[in-house]
Every structure is written in C-alpha cells, then in structure tokens.
C-alpha cells in the first residue's frame, strides 16, 4: 500500500497534464465500470465480515490490484494500465472519516506519456441497496508549477453511515510513446500484503504481453503467482490470491520486508534486439522471472564495470595523477589504504569548497559504484588482491530472493596484510576498514576482482557481524551541582566509533570540520581558491567568513537539541562545543567531541536534602510498553552496539551521599547486557555504566533475554541518590 502510494506520488510529481478530468472518455469509463463492478468476482459481492474483526475500525472485504503491460505490434506505443479496486466495510466514524474523501489525478499528458484516469465510487447500505456516486460533483483542485499542470480532482462521498460498504476503483491507463528507443523500464513496486485494516480477500494480477519482461518474487510466505493463460487473447495473466490478513502493526526493531508477506516486481519492455544488450536480469518475455543466476550477476557486474570506462571522471583523472607518487610503494596493504584516502579526497574535498560557496550546500553523498570501480581498477593495476562484495541490504531481502539489479549493494574487500579489510562506505567520513551495516550477517556474493573478468566466478559467503565493541559510544560526563540554583553543570566528552558516528557527524560536522586535516595531507598549495580570478576569490573569501560564522551557531543549536533529547531535559545553555577528532581514518576511528551544558531537572530539593535522579544523568533508556512485552516477530536491529558511561558528580560541600549501593546492577546474557556500579571517590560520586547489544539480529525466542537487560537499564534510569545535609 505504501509503495503503491509512492508510485502515485511519483506520477503526480513528474507529470503535467495538458487536459483535465476523470472518466473523460465515457465509452472507456463504461467499459471499466462494467468490468470492475458488473463482472466483479464473488469476493466483491460479499457484505458480511468475520466476527473476529467486528471491533476493527474497518475491514477490507476485497482488494484487487490489476496491472497490465503490453506493446502493440508495429506501433511504437507501450501501454501500462493499473486498476485498483477496494471494497471496504466501515465500522466506525473514524473509518467514515477515512473513506469519505477521495482525490484522483486528472487525465492528461506529459512529454511521451499520456495518462487517463477513471474512477468509480459506490456505497452499499446495510439493507443491500447500492448507490453509485456521481462524479459530477468532483471538484478540481488547480495546481500549476512552472506552467505544468498538476491538477487533481476531489470528491466527498455522500450519505456514509457506520455499517456501509464503500466499493471503489481508481484506474490509470498510460500510453507511452517509445518511438526512438527500444526499451523502457517501469518503476519497481513492492506490495505488502497487509494493510491498515484487516483484509478478507485480495488479488494481485499481471497481464504481461509481447516483449515485456517481468521480474517478480513472493516473499515471507506470500502466496505464489499462478499462470492463467488465455492464448486466444494472447494474454499471460499471473494471479496471486490471498486471504485473511491481519492489520499491519507498528513494531520496534522490525524489517517489514523480511517478515510481512510481500511481493516485489519490476517490468521492462525491450525489443528483441535490445533485450540482449540490457543488463537488468531479464528473463523470457511474458514469463515470470523469479530468480537470478550467478552468471547473470557476473555479466551484470562486467557491464557495470565496462560502462564506467566510458564515464568521464575528473576524480579519476586527478586520482590517477596523484597516485603516481606511490609508484615505488611495495607494501600492498599500505598502498590500498593510501589509494582509498586519496580517492576520498578527490571525491569529497578537493574542489568541494567551490561547490559549497556557489550555493550547492554541504553535500556528503556517497560516491557509489564509480568510486569502487576506480579503486578496484587501481588495485588490480598494482596487483592488490581484492574482492567485490555483492549483497542485498538486510532490510530489503535475502540474497536468494534477488530479482532486481537495483536491490544490490556493493563493497570491496582487500585481501592483503594479516586479515581482510572491507571498504563499504564512500562518503566524506568513510574510512578504510568498515563493513556496511546493511550487509553484516547476510549472505553475499564474492567476486575476485584481482583476476581478469573472463575468470570471474561468484562465491557465496556469509558476511561477519561487527562486534558491539566496534560500534561503541563512550561518554565522560562530569557534573557539578549548583545547590542554590538547583542546577547541574555538565562537562562532557563523547567518543564514537563505528556506525553511531553517522548521526553525530551529520549534525555536528561539515566540510570545514575536516578541511584542514585533508589539505594538510593531500594538498601542496597553500593558496585559497587557486583556480579563481581575483574578484571571484574575494567573493569566495567573503562567503566563507559568513558560512563559518553561521555553522558554529548551527552546530551548537543542533547539539543543544540532541543533548536535551538524550537526557530528556531542557538545556539552559550549551557552550564550548569542539570536535576533538573527526573519526575519519582507520588509525583514529573515534569521532570525539566535547561541550559544556547547564540544565535543571534531575535535582530535587526534599526538605533540607536533595534527591539526585542519577539515572537521568546518562542517555535515556528504552522503556518497553506493556504491549511490547510479547514479541511475535524476529528482532532486526541496525547493528551490534555498545554504550559506555563514566559519570562523575562532585558532591556539594556539606552533603553526604546515600543510596549508591542501589546503583549496582548487572544483567548479561547472549543477547546483550547492562552493568552499572557506583562508588565514592575523592569527593565525587562515580558511576560506571555499560550497555551492549550483542548482535544486529535476534530470533524472537530471545526476546525475554533482551528484555532482561533492557529492563535493567530502564530500572537504572529511575534510580535516585540522596544528598543529605550534614
């Protein structure tokens, strides 16, 4: 449902309509109505719902998604139709709210595409009477962006009451003029078989005709598609029939595409001649393709790699030139590392200040396959043994369920030195020796890229999972107490290794954070903007002053928000933010920063004493709700991780501390752990806390084990100590 709506958005986004209206062609409108309503299957004639769903807000009695893809012989037109049909019983006023207003895009055309929209709405009352809603009442919502029309049409459904059934369809018929090209790729679609309301019966059908290729897979227990051929009509219809689906729920640590029954597919049109040269895992026209062979993947990688040679790349040119100075370097492991950092410099640093000051903003996008390709080809030229890792992100699919080329994600592995080293991130903060969190624990294909392409063979391998120690966040939190004000002064240092860095680097760093360390390493000229004329240089320098001034304020504001959220307090003042180490090199992997913050909240005056909510002095802990106590699905977390806190609180003069012994907690098992200990040392309360999640995945059977340490951490967060007046 979500993806299909995205598709609709996509259409609205990229289309502009020359004419307007819904059901503009009355003859076709009547045909569609006849087909979807008069000749509806029995599923769309049901009025009763199962007793088990009587308390639901609404129940989808029947739902159908019919798609067709066809190419007429001779003419250069491609036809893509989509018919969405729902029959929904409304059981509450809220459901009436949800189904009483509809919006349909207007018929029109844009470039080589022509769209026609048809819709029908009818209401079936409790006594069985049916009323078709006239579309004459549709209201046009005008919208025009830069002279392109994006109008939509709205309708309010009259006379809706609890117990009514709304039966509606929205059909989109697209004609695509493909003159001058011999292939066309439709956007991939993922259907989750669960919806916001329970579903009694649903059907997804595809008609695939003449030279259309369809890649499709049912996942996570979704029923398979059955072929229903109609040779007379030259139709291959694939139909999935499903029933009795419970409502979709929102669950912590969940990958829907790995647990919820799902169907993914993509359709491609290619002429006979074009089909051989397209690298998109095409099967046989008109027949479903549900698996991808290893040789297809190898061919695809060859194609990708070869095509990169035709792309003009300034980065490649500068990188190749720069690496000439390492001609004599014989340590291959060292060379592999040097090459990575040099290439990162040319992609993300070298000329990026121009871009920034020309208004393109701070862009730290991952460089993608081209980066891998340049690096890999360089490695091969220098005899550096390495593999290409080809996998699918763990939240999308398992490798066996691969059907689309755009599901793939790539990494490199250098097999020099004592142990293999992964390179899987290609942004400005990526460093040598990181394994993509999305591929950890998944089965991937490994391809020896040191060899010639004709020797390439895929091997399957299981990717390792980072230790929780790799993804570690360490906190040194020094508090002092202002008794008179009832406030706390925090002097903090945070040091993050691994995946946790991304979030903080995103909000607390930019180009200027690492400019100096990069220029010191990779740039010889001292001069700013050497390629610019005097006036342009002056302008750049002025803008730089502005940018530098603004960013400091922005970072402190961001950090103030982050710290406030983490500690669940309102920060009164935050100052002295400083990045101590950028965490962008494998020999200095910690991203470390420090700051000072003042706030109130955890200190409560009780009589003449103070209660300090000491559990609130570290980051907020997960509080599992009552309904999370039972777990129905496996547990998918982003990565294994750990958190270390060293808290020091100066005991105010004239006070003693009681209750520290309650802070000693220790729960540890195979899924993770929480440990805390507290003691007094030289006039300070010292608390040491460690929390770790051992893996990025746990089977649902381990939920009780996870709960044990999560609850211990939550218990800690509620702990208080007494500062007793002497």
């Amino acid at each position, binding site marked *: 449902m979500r993806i299909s709506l995205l598709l609709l958005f996509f259409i609205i*986004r990229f289309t502009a309509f020359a004419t307007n209206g819904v059901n503009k062609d009355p003859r076709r409108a009547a045909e569609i109505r006849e087909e979807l309503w008069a000749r509806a299957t029995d599923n769309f004639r049901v009025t009763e719902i199962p007793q088990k769903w009587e308390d639901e807000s609404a129940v989808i009695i029947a739902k159908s998604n019919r798609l067709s893809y066809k190419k007429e012989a001779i003419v250069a037109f491609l036809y893509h139709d989509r018919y969405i049909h729902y029959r929904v019983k409304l059981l509450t006023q809220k459901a009436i709210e949800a189904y009483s207003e509809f919006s349909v895009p207007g018929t029109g055309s844009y470039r080589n595409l022509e769209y026609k929209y048809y819709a029908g709405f009818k209401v079936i009352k409790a006594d069985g009477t049916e009323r078709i809603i006239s579309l004459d009442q549709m209201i046009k919502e005008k919208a*025009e962006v830069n002279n392109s029309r994006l109008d939509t049409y709205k309708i309010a459904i009259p006379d809706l009451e609890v117990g009514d059934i709304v039966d509606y369809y929205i059909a989109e018929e697209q004609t695509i003029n493909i003159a001058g090209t011999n292939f066309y790729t439709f956007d991939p679609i993922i259907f989750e078989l669960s919806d916001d309301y329970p579903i009694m019966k649903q059907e997804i059908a595809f008609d695939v005709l003449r030279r259309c290729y369809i890649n499709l897979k049912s996942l996570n227990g979704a029923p398979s598609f059955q072929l229903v051929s109609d040779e007379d009509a030259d139709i291959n219809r694939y139909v999935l029939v499903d029933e009795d689906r419970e409502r979709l729920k929102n669950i912590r640590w969940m990958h829907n595409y790995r647990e919820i029954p799902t169907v993914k597919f993509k359709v491609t049109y290619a002429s006979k001649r074009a089909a051989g040269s397209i690298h998109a895992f095409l099967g046989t026209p008109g027949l479903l393709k549900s698996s991808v062979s290893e040789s297809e993947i190898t061919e695809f990688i060859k194609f990708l790699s070869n095509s990169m040679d035709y792309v003009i790349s300034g980065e490649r040119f500068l990188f190749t030139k720069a690496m000439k100075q390492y001609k004599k370097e014989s340590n291959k492991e060292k060379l592999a590392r040097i090459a990575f950092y040099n290439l990162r410099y040319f992609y993300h640093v070298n000329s990026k200040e121009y871009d920034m000051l020309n208004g393109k903003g701070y862009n730290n996008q991952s460089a993608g396959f081209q980066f891998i390709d340049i690096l890999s080809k360089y490695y091969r030229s220098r005899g550096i043994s390495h593999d290409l890792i080809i996998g699918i992100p763990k939240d999308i699919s398992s490798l066996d369920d691969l059907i689309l080329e755009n599901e793939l994600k790539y990494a490199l592995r250098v097999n020099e030195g004592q142990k293999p080293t992964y390179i899987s991130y290609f942004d400005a903060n990526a460093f040598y020796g990181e394994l993509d969190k999305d591929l950890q624990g998944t089965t991937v294909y490994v391809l020896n890229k040191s060899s010639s392409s004709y020797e390439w063979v895929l091997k399957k391998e299981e990717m390792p999972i980072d230790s929780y120690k790799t993804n570690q966040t360490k906190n040194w939190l020094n508090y002092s107490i202002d008794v008179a004000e009832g406030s706390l002064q925090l002097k903090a240092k945070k040091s993050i290794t691994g995946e946790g860095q991304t979030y903080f680097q995103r909000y607390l760093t930019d180009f200027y954070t690492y400019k100096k360390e990069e220029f010191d390493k990779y740039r010889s000229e001292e001069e700013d903007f050497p390629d610019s004329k005097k006036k342009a240089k002056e302008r750049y320098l002025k803008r730089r002053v502005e940018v530098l001034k*603004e960013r400091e304020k922005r970072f402190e504001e961001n950090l103030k928000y982050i710290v406030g959220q983490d500690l669940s307090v309102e920060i009164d003042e935050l100052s002295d933010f400083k990045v101590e180490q950028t965490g962008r090199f494998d020999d200095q992997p910690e991203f470390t920063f420090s700051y000072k913050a003042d706030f109130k909240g955890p200190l409560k005056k009780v009589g003449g004493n103070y209660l300090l909510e000491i559990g609130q002095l570290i980051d907020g802990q997960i509080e599992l709700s009552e309904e999370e106590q039972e777990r129905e699905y496996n547990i998918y977390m982003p990565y294994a991780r750990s958190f270390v806190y060293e808290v020091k609180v100066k005991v105010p003069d004239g006070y003693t501390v009681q209750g520290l012994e309650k802070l000693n907690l220790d729960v540890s098992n195979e899924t993770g752990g929480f440990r805390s200990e507290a003691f007094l040392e030289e006039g300070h309360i010292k608390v040491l806390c460690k929390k770790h999640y051992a893996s990025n995945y746990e089977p649902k059977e381990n939920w009780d084990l996870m709960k044990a340490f999560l609850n211990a951490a939550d218990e800690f967060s509620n702990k208080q100590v007494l500062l007793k007046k002497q």
Partner: protein
Amino acid sequence: MLINLRCYLSVLVCYALNTRQVLTVFMLLTGFLFSYGQKVKEEHLAAAEELKEMFEDSEVALLTNESTYYFRFDEKKQQTKVFSKERKEYLGLQFNSSFVERNYFHQNLKISSYSLKNYRGKTIPHDEFCGHYTRNGIFHSDAEVCAYHFSFPSKGGYRVFETSKTFLDPKYLTTLYFHSNVPAASRKMVFRIPEWMDVELLEMNFEGYDINKKLDVVDKETVVTFTIENIEAFPDESNLPGISHFLPHVIVLTKGYEHDGIYTDVLSNTNSLYQWYKSLVDQTSSNPLVIQPKVEELVKGLTSDEQKMKAIYYWVQENIKYIAFEEGLAAFKPEDAHRVLENKYGDCKGMANLTKDMLKMAGLDARLSWIGTNQLAYTYDIPSLAVDNHMICSVNLDGRYIHLDATEKNHPFDEYAERLQGKQVLIENGDSYLVKEIPETPIDRYLHKTNVTFSLGDGTLQAEAIETLNGELKKGFIDAYQSITPDRKRLFFKSIASGDLKTEAIALTNQPELTKENPLTLEYTLAMNDQLNSFGEETYVTLDYKKELANYQVPSDRKHPLNFAYKMNHQFNGTLPVPSHMEIIHLPDPVAIASEHFEFTLKYELENNAIRYQRELKVLDTYLPVEKFSEWNAALDLVQEFYDDQLILRTSK
C-alpha cells in the same frame, strides 16, 4: 496549535499558514535558481548587515514593504472597487538564502500583474506555483495562491516584488497586518480614500508599537499613511492565540459610497452586515419531504423541547460528517438543509442549517447564528466580514437561547466548546437580528478529579483510586479513543490513569465508558516502586503520580501571548495512613497562589495519623498575555518545587 479551528467562513486574512505546503511543492522541482556572480550594491550590503544584527535568526528581510489601497468607482460595472499596489524590497541577510513570496487571490480578489526584479530592474528567474491551497480541515476552498520561489546571490542580494490586485467588491478588503513573513526595516500602509467614499480605518492593537499615522488631502482624496520601522516577522511560536488578539492591524470598514448623489450602503453597520448574510440565507431552500421523516423518527415519543433538541442535535453531530467548502458565495451561504441530510456531510453552515430546519420541524424556534471563534478578537459592533468565521444554530427556549454547534462531535448538549465561550453570537431574528453572548462554562465543569487511598507496603506504595474526567479534557480523549485500534483500547484507559507511571503499575477495576454526557470514570489499583525510596531509616515518598502542569513554565524568550487549548481544573486528593512503626519527619510546605488567570493550592496535612494530600490546579482563562508570564512562571516554579519535594518518614526507634 492546540486549537484546531475547523470551520471558517472566509479566507480574508492571507496569513502565511501555508508555508510548508508551498515549499514542499518547490522542493519537488529539480532546478535550483541560484544566481552566480551577481553584484551586490554596497548600500544593500550595509543594510543587510544592519538588519542581520537586528534580526539574527532571519535569512531574508524586507528593506521596505509598502502597500497602497485606492478606492475607485467602476463606471462600466457601476460599482466600487479597491485597487492595491504592493512593493516589497527584499534583502538576503546571508549567503545562500532563498524565499517564497505568496500572492493570494480568490473570486473577489484578482491579481492584475506582478513582477520580480533585481536592483538593475531586470526580471529574475524564479519558480512559480499557482493553484488552490489547502488548510487543515478544509476540503475545498476557492482561495488560491501564486507563490514565487527566488534566491539571493549573497548577503545584500536585492529583489523587488511588485504586484497590483483588485478587490472586485470592497467588503472583501477587511484586515491588513503590518507584519510579514520576514522582518521589515520599513513598513508602510497607505489608503487613498476619495471624498465620496465612506471608509473608516480601525486601528487595532497599536499600543506598544511605534506606528506613525499621517493624514493628508491630495486631489480630493484623504490619504492616510501608517508607517512603522524595524518590525519583526509574523510570530511562529507554538500555542499562539489568534493573531487578531495581539498583532497590530487595520480593519478597513467600507461603509458606503455616494455616486451621482445616491448613497449606496456597503457595510455601514451591523445591520447591513446582517442584511447581507440574511440575503444569502434567503437564497437557500428547504425540502420538508426529505427532512420530515427523519425528524419524526428522531422525536417520536419525546415530549419535552429539551429531549427533542438533544435528539436532533446529537443525530446531526454523529451522522453528518464535517467537510468544509469555501467557494465563492458558498463561503458565506449555507447549503440547503435537505442536501446536507442527503449527503450526510456539510460544513459548519450546512450543519447549522440542517440543525435549524430539523428543529423547526420539531416545533422549536431555531435560528441560524454567526459567530467568531476565539481565534478572532472582534465583536459585532464592527461591521466587517472579518468579525466571524463560523456558523451555529441557536434555539429560543422561552427567551433563553441555547446554542448548538454540530461540528463539535463530542460535545454534550447545552455545553459550549472553549472556542465559542464568551463570544458574541449574531442570531437571525427576521428582518432584524439579536446579539447574544455564549456563556462561559464554569470551571467546575472542567473538573478532573483523582481520589486515592494509599498504603505503604513492603518496598512499594500501593493505592486504590477513582478518577473522573469532564469537559474538554474528556472530549479530547473521546476523539483519541475513536482513532485507536481495538487491541489497544484497554491500554488507552490505563495510559490516561497512569500519569508519570508505567501502565503496568495500573490495574483497572472497572469498565470505563467514554460518552459525551457522562464523566469518564476510571477505577484502578496501583502498585508503585519508583514512588518511594529508602535511605537507611528514612523513606522518601511521592504521592502525586499525575503532577499536572509540571514543567509548564513559559520559556523566557517567548514574545507573544500563550493560548491554552482549554481551561483546566485538576484536583488530586490522597490519604496515606502513617504506618505504626513510622513517624513523619518532613512534609512539603503548602503552596497557595491565586490570580485572575489561575488558582493553585497544594498541601499536605496530618490528620488522625494519616497524611492528607490535597492539590487543586485551576487555569481559569485560556489566554495568557505576555505581561502575565512572570507571574505565571513564578507560580509554576513554586508548584514545581512542591512537586520535587517529598514526604519523609522515619522508622521509629
């Protein structure tokens, strides 16, 4: 926004509530209109520096913002029109800034021209969106906007936007604000009023603003000029009352005009406003054949007027879905009652009209009424379309007027939504009209009361509680309850009861029912671990697990008034018998503060060897003006201190 106004009659103030929507559209565009290498004039740069000092959070400011309004008689159409000219000089206050200028129009306000130029007078490239715009809760409105997205080359970058517009009917020119979406170094508003034109300019909320007013006579026209310097942007703070309450603005009262010796009334007084409204209402028709059967069905067997009123009102509330239309005269003219009944949807006017027709058929003296919700600061002595934004039905019951707003889905009969209380209502009365006031609901009707009996067990604080909720607080829970899935319904009640506690601490002992007429009653037991702490012989106890209004202080940098969604009356009464082996060594000091806006009383007392805890927090008014912030915060600080403090008991030796 705490208040979600669901029914508007008109879109007259084009206040930029729609920024996000327009920006989203522009974000869809792939091109970015950055102008490289354009020069900046020294004087603009200097002005930008100065403005940045003054308005440090702003990326863009107005150097000047002038609008002039001309009243002219259209001989051809034989009617008066108002022409407006706006000229806005924008400056970029920092590198890489951009802005979206919005130019609003509707059926009675047309854009004649616009231009967007740089300081050399050359048109600059920009993205343009034109179309209807939607606001929360409005299904369709004929209000349209053209929005132009442009960027500034660098600090001091200059863009001038000019537009000419025409009000086809002068009564649609209503309120004009000095504020804009960005701060302005200079804001000027000019009215050129011919001597044949009867126009009054009402100066609203000018106090506290240094607005200069100048009167001239030029070519038989009175020229009224208002100027103000260094004015901030429209506020974007949360929980703001309607801006008409506190921002300076001018209400343009176009009373009438004289042409060829004949005086034509536009809106000269409340009666002419009423007569115009009435002329629209008179255009509606009624089909008793559609309505009568439903009325008969609803009132069958009912004898008293109140029963009939209630039956019909509740039916409309529950069965007519609110869908708002604001198109042309439809923004002011109610839909025919029978059409609303057939459609089972309508806007506030349609629902009021249906309620009225049904009640009349049931033999009651029901009338249509116009009202401005508490978003508007006006009363009916101002004859302007800006004065109201809502329609309800009023019933004359032997001289007492009962007002029925069927758009308030979960409101009980004869109680009034917060947004209507204290507001004037203009009631139809044949050829004349009545102005009445919606009564304020007494604070007792907002009562949220929690009675708890505590006991100290082994390391836990246990309790039995009865909690009742009334008023708008309960109404909000009815709304929320209707949105949740069936498996979460019981947990929903527990989460209301739990306050600061985890829901696991609560065990419900009754089956709570949410109805509009009865209070919501929750009965439950509690077992709380985190509410007490033992340190040696001493035990620290917190009885209050609700702590309403904790951390409700107004931030010190807030500049504009605060609006509460509704009045509040939270009471908490607890009793804890002191265990025989313990003695009390500390009770928090009582707090008692009262002002015209609030009353807070919190105290612990020892009675018959039991601790009695009593807490009453009353917020008597939804509008908290800026000058009361310090008083409010000081009171809340005391409440917070009281909450932070705890009982201390000691094990007797």
